[in-house]
């Protein structure tokens, strides 16, 4: 029995080792990314759940297997207000590097619970699914050990590598779940039905996503629709192939994933921009490190300025929440929904540019940059 377990353990070890080169990121890169992550969350992606105070109880229809189902109704307004403020403080701690690990884990728990209330109207939106897991993944790396006011205790290199391997598997698996269903249904060599067309109808008419280039969807010639079905299904199902092939392939896949999201944003107004914080761990973090190294004095000045701005914004938002003033929150603040589309577009373009830059480096330089070593 033990011999069998040893055999299985070794085989699995080899499998995980094959993923490791694709997902390896250096501690310095992760620490720089942590600051980027925190600033972006505070300035733009800030979640808030106080808006749920205004939703009538009759709308409360949570899924059976979500935290919200455990309660009879939406929690009292004071709970949302308290947790909104807590989340802002925790994000500030992450940005400044104070109790980073504990803050990230707390953020995962609080966000996991509270987003289940945001999705308690009989449907679960998926724009937070990958992003939420970037909290615990970053927590089990050494992202809080550098550029931090109160550095975390260092974890072993092995733990950091494992955490990043898990994130790689999470992304590839997430796409696989979406792609398998499409492969079975959409790849049917039947020109009389189309999956892409169903998305057009659903997004444009049912969800009223009619901004940016959405009206031009109706100009797409019908003969293109069928190949689009196959392309989407093939792309979504192939994540594991790229993950096992190594760094360059993985960066390529994430860049294509970003282009995929950008296209969805432009035509379907489906905003999955929170995923930039997830893919960014692999494709944005090395770029941030390069920028910081090349322009040290300017970068320091900019980081100080941005951190200062984040603290100010955090303070203003805490005051707004505590005084019942309307507070902006990502995705559920109607007055700014259309502006969000443009900011999301910029974020995707930035992520794609980072991916393309990394792909333009040779294989050796790509590995060196990811680990924080100097390029040859």
């Amino acid at each position, binding site marked *: 029995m033990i011999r069998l377990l040893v055999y299985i353990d070794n085989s699995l070890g080899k499998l*995980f080792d094959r993923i490791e080169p694709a997902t390896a990121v250096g501690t310095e890169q992760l620490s720089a990314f942590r600051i980027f992550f925190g600033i972006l969350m505070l300035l733009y992606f800030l979640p808030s759940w106080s*808006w749920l105070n205004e939703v009538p109880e009759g709308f409360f*229809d949570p899924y059976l297997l979500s935290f919200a189902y455990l309660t009879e109704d939406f929690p009292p307004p004071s709970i949302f207000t308290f947790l909104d403020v807590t989340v802002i403080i925790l994000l500030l701690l992450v940005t400044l590097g104070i109790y980073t690990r504990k803050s990230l884990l707390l953020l995962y728990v609080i966000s996991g619970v509270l987003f289940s209330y945001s999705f308690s109207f009989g449907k679960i939106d998926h724009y937070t*699914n990958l992003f939420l897991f970037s909290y615990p993944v970053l927590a089990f790396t050494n992202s809080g050990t550098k550029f931090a006011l109160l550095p975390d205790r260092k974890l072993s290199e092995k733990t950091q590598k*494992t955490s990043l391997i898990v994130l790689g598997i999470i992304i590839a698996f997430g*796409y696989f779940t979406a792609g398998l269903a*499409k492969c079975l249904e959409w790849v049917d060599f039947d020109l009389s039905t*189309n999956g892409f067309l169903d998305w057009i109808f659903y997004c444009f008419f049912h969800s009223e996503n009619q901004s940016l280039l959405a009206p031009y969807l109706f100009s797409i010639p019908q003969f293109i629709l069928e190949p689009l079905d196959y392309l989407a299904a093939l792309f979504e199902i192939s994540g594991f192939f790229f993950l096992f092939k190594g760094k360059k392939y993985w960066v390529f896949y994430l860049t294509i994933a970003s282009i995929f999201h950008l296209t969805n944003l432009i035509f379907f107004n489906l905003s999955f921009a929170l995923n930039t914080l997830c893919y960014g761990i692999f494709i944005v973090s090395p770029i941030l490190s390069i920028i910081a190294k090349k322009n040290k004095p300017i970068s320091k000045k900019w980081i100080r300025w941005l951190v200062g701005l984040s603290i100010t914004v955090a303070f203003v938002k805490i005051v707004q929440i505590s005084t019942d003033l309307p507070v902006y929150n990502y995705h559920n603040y109607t007055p700014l929904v259309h502006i969000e589309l443009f900011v999301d577009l910029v974020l995707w373009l930035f992520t794609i540019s980072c991916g393309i830059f990394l792909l333009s480096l040779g294989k050796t330089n790509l590995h060196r940059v990811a680990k924080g070593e100097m390029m040859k």
Partner: protein
Amino acid sequence: MISRFKNIVLFLFLILILGIPYLSRLLDYRLEMFPSIVLPFGSNKAKVQDITHLSINAIYGYTKDGSLKELDKSEFLQNIRVGYFDNLYNKRFGLRASNPTTFKTNRLGITINLQSKISEQDKERTKEWIREKLSNQGCVDSMLILKKKEIVIPKNGQYYESNNLVHDTIISLY
């Protein structure tokens, strides 16, 4: 023992966080877990035809001069995305006389019991909320009218709304 088989532990952990939620989602969309790593399945298909007729849920109210007015969904729902409208519409905005307490899963047909989360008091507060939204859009607040309108989409993409309004239901708010 556990420290000796770290890779097996990691694999079991992955099964726990990835495999189980996925299997649950495969059983039925209503058994989707949150949070979990399941991305949109969205594998429905539309018929490719020369003219498509699409039925769209819409809500209406009567203005003070007695004419029927279609309500703006986004304004009605406030900060809830319009993407949720159909779900809320199908459940009569929480004002159904009774809510189903069981369902059978799409795969394997397992019976799942549900607990109703909407009390009579909740319904009263929801009616109050809807009345306010009707008034905000210049309508009398005594009833919310649910209809299905038809969108016609010809091959050239020049879609238009047909005059066929299919009556669904009227929700009395007093």
